[in-house]
């Protein structure tokens, strides 16, 4: 549904994004993950047709964003980072305006506004002035704006920002609900969001794509970096140095101690199971082994690992 090829955006001083390529299939939810300033917003703005790219192409449903901008925009509902709300208008009045400029047929406008307001549960504030609404409501009005005209593609820049946990849950459920009939690209810097809602993840950092995969695969790939949690009774400094000296061990962290038992986090080399070696070392030294457990890295760790990898090198 969306094909992005070698997308590059240069500003006078810096590269915002560089050779970004990915595809989104029909009905899929693609998550855009990255720290602030990574290029998520820039990429989404280019897909939505707000700004042109310096290089590369974007095709939505076969239409080129640059060559057929109106055909593309007709197929996209876009929620920018700051919801584009006319604060002096009422919720219904605002959605009516959006419906008009999005070309919803005149006789269907009333029905469309009603449908969208029910969808994002803002029917109760239909006649209120937008400026007077809470942040959560404003965000939902913004989301409603993107849904007007039922476009097949939704580009949502940080859709859950500023919402309380209950509202976040509702919006995520709504997005999952929309997938299937809609193709959704959403950005976030909150990891659980991606894990819970997206079929695939694009991790982007400093304008470049670091990884594209399903959340499950990303997790699996990175489990190669074995992390083991241990609880050992014995002299802490000696344990740390001996464990560190073992082949295959990259790093050892002390996590705390209790009653002479110390907890450690041991990171091993990729795809190498060091658990039995660790156990042997502990026993050979006459320490007491209370716990040994392989830890699954959360996406959060993966994210940190991926985006800080370059700095370490």
């Amino acid at each position, binding site marked *: 549904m969306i094909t992005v090829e070698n997308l590059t955006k240069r500003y006078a001083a810096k590269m915002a994004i560089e050779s970004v390529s990915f595809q989104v299939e029909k009905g899929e939810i693609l998550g855009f993950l990255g720290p602030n300033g990574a290029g998520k917003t*820039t990429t989404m703005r280019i897909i939505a*047709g707000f*700004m042109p790219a310096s290089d590369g192409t974007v095709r939505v449903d076969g239409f080129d964003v640059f060559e057929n901008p109106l055909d593309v925009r007709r197929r996209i509902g876009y929620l920018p980072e*700051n*919801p*584009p709300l006319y604060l002096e208008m009422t919720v219904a009045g605002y959605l009516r305006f959006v419906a008009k*400029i999005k*070309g919803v047929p005149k006789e269907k406008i009333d029905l469309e506004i009603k449908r969208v307001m029910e969808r994002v549960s803002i029917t109760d504030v239909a006649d209120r002035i937008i400026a007077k609404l809470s942040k959560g409501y404003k965000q939902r009005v913004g989301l409603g704006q993107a849904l007007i005209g039922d476009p097949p593609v939704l580009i949502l820049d940080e859709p859950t920002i500023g919402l309380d946990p209950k509202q976040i849950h509702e919006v995520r459920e709504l997005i999952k609900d929309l997938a299937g009939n809609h193709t959704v690209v959403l950005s976030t810097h909150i990891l659980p969001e991606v894990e819970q809602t997206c079929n695939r993840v694009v991790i982007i950092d400093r304008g470049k794509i670091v990884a594209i995969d399903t959340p499950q695969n990303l997790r699996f790939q990175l489990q190669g970096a074995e992390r083991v949690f241990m609880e050992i009774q014995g002299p802490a400094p000696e344990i740390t140095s001996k464990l560190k000296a073992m082949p295959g061990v990259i790093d050892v962290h002390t996590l705390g101690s209790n009653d002479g038992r110390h907890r450690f986090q041991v990171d091993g080399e990729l795809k190498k199971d060091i658990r039995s070696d660790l156990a042997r070392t502990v026993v050979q030294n006459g320490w007491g082994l209370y716990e040994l457990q392989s830890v699954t890295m959360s996406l959060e760790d993966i994210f940190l690992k991926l985006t800080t990898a370059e700095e370490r090198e």
Partner: protein
Amino acid sequence: MRNILAIVERELRAYFTSPIAYVVLTIFVFLSGLFFRSILAQVLQMGLMSQLQAQQLGPRAMDMPGMITRGFLSTMSVILLFVMPMLTMGLFSEEKKRGTIELLLTSPVTDLQVVLGKFFAAVAFFVILLLTTWIPTGFLYWYSSPASGPILTAYLGLLLYGLALMAIGLFISTLTENQIIAAVVSFGIVMVLWLVDVFANSVDSSNGKAVLTYLSVLNHLDDFMKGVLSTSHIIFYLSLMLIALFLTYRSIDSLRWRG
């Protein structure tokens, strides 16, 4: 066309939900009444004087209603000069500040439709302002019978003049996120275009003098006020408008590039 109308409608609603429209309308109507009264008094005095002179030098024709409307509408053109930046200041600057420009520029609407929608909304409000000047002018028709020709050409002149100056204001509002700055800068430019023929006096070359005099936005109104329709003045205002609208259009385009 439907897109343009949707934008015009939204802008007009925005004018009338904010206090701007009411403040501008109130002050404008108040000032126009005040000036009409003082011009009326002036012309009446001149009428009395000429009656006294007529006793000695014989009667002379005097178009009193014509003098009143000419004086009144010329004064209005100066007041409108001050009012117009207030009508155009927020048209794009507020959209930029609020981020709503992102909605307009990602909707299936062309940039030209956005520019024209905003422009026509300001023009519509301007026309409402012009219509309020029919309150005093109406009294003139009630108590006297002024020649309608010059009045109609004067209104046409004022409309063209408004189109040109508001297009400039529209362009300026694309350049900033701050509507006060937009108003002050548009006002400055309009003032220069008004007073440019004053500078003409200090220029030595006769060509330079001619160019500066030509650029003065108020000079071109004189003939309209006298009831003379001249294509050169019409072309002057329309080309000023087209240049400014073109710059607005380009400015929106560059807004996209810069993000």
